[in-house]
């Protein structure tokens, strides 16, 4: 079983983003997706901290200390980009103006629930950031993550065991093993398998029933 590495996962997501979409990318693998959307396919990246039209990371000698993304990394602004304040930024999110948000996750459930912010209800000080706003507000929520935890635990599950970020929000999951759609009333449907991965293998690595078609 080969599967995708992290870069290939990011590239696989990037393939599916059409020109003209407003897209918010979470921290981690989601951030890497931007590297695989060619600049001539105009996808407009949104950042919670008040940016539309984010561009790639700057050359080390051209870093602008005033310009960071939601992960606090130096970025650039494309021609046509704009800045605005946090309430306007989240008006875009909450108001349903963002076509797509891609987040990482601890778990995604067959009913579209996502858990990505806290590992226990007793977590001493969980950091939620903008994840709940994005989960509830974006038109579509996709997840990109490793198919299992490092010690083989399930992240594709029937029901989330960790505290939810947003119920019923995820419509697609990209992992190192393949691409799953989350279909209402049905659950996970395998849309695509990573190179060298069989259905049986991806099913075996999942804590929920996977469907074909």
């Amino acid at each position, binding site marked *: 079983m080969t599967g995708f590495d992290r870069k290939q996962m990011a590239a696989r997501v990037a393939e599916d983003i059409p*020109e*003209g979409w*407003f897209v918010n990318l979470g921290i981690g693998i989601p951030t890497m997706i931007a590297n695989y959307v060619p600049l*001539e396919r*105009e996808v*407009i990246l*949104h950042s919670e901290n008040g940016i*539309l*039209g984010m561009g790639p990371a700057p050359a080390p000698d051209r870093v602008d200390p005033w310009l960071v993304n939601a992960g606090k990394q130096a970025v650039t*602004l*494309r*021609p*046509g*980009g*704009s*800045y*605005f304040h946090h*309430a306007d930024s*989240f*008006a*875009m*999110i*909450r*108001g*349903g*103006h*963002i076509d797509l948000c891609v987040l990482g996750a601890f778990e995604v459930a067959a009913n579209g629930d996502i858990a990505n912010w806290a590992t226990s209800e007793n977590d001493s000080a969980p950091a939620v950031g903008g994840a709940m706003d994005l989960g509830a*507000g974006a038109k579509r929520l996709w997840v990109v993550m490793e198919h299992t935890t490092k010690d083989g635990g399930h992240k594709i599950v029937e029901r989330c065991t960790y505290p939810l970020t947003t119920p019923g929000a995820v419509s697609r999951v990209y992992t190192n093993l393949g691409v799953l759609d989350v279909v209402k009333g049905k659950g996970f449907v395998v849309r695509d398998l990573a190179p060298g991965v069989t259905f049986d293998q991806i099913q075996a690595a999942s804590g929920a029933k996977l469907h074909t078609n």
Partner: protein
Amino acid sequence: MINKIVQSMADAMAGIKDGSTVLIGGFGAVGQPDHLIEGLIEQGATGLTCVANNAGTGRVGLARLMELGRVRKIICSFPRSAGSVVFEELYRQGKIELEIVPQGTMAERMRAAGAGVPAFFTATSVGTILANGKEQRDFNGRTYVMEHALKGDVALVEAWEGDRWGNLTYRSSGRNFNPVMAMAADLTIAQVMHIRELGELVPENVHTPGIFVQRVLRIDRGPAWA
């Protein structure tokens, strides 16, 4: 390449359906998308609910749209401007429905629609007949009414500059309701005085980011406004 700039009024108006809620920017003549209103008259959609600060003046623009029987209902704060003759006639004859909304509540209801807030509380209108039938509630010893988001199918706005990503700037007091309405509608159509190249607008000073705008049409309003 994203290109929201349309070349004709017909393209600008394409797909506006009968029964739509249409938000119309402007405060008096300033910031009012005159040409787009003419375009809507031409386009033919009827049974409209129009949201605008005023109920039209004279027999042109919004007043003309009403006179043609195309407006089922108007939501506004100030229907009785000097010269709102058409509205007054239709209203007296029971041919148009009216919802009076305090000006700030009207702006905030649209901002709420754009920001994904279905309802909010305000002290405006508490203790008046405009609060009749509305839910009231006390917070910290003061009474507030609950107001609902006011969403548009279409917004017609006027701006000073626009680019192909739909970014807009406004000039002076021409801004007024326009940015709020642009946020609140599914289809926002902007008439602009100037088309700018992508990147010409200063990113800090884009007043309406292109995410809120679907179509941009250049209009020559004439030398008085240039």
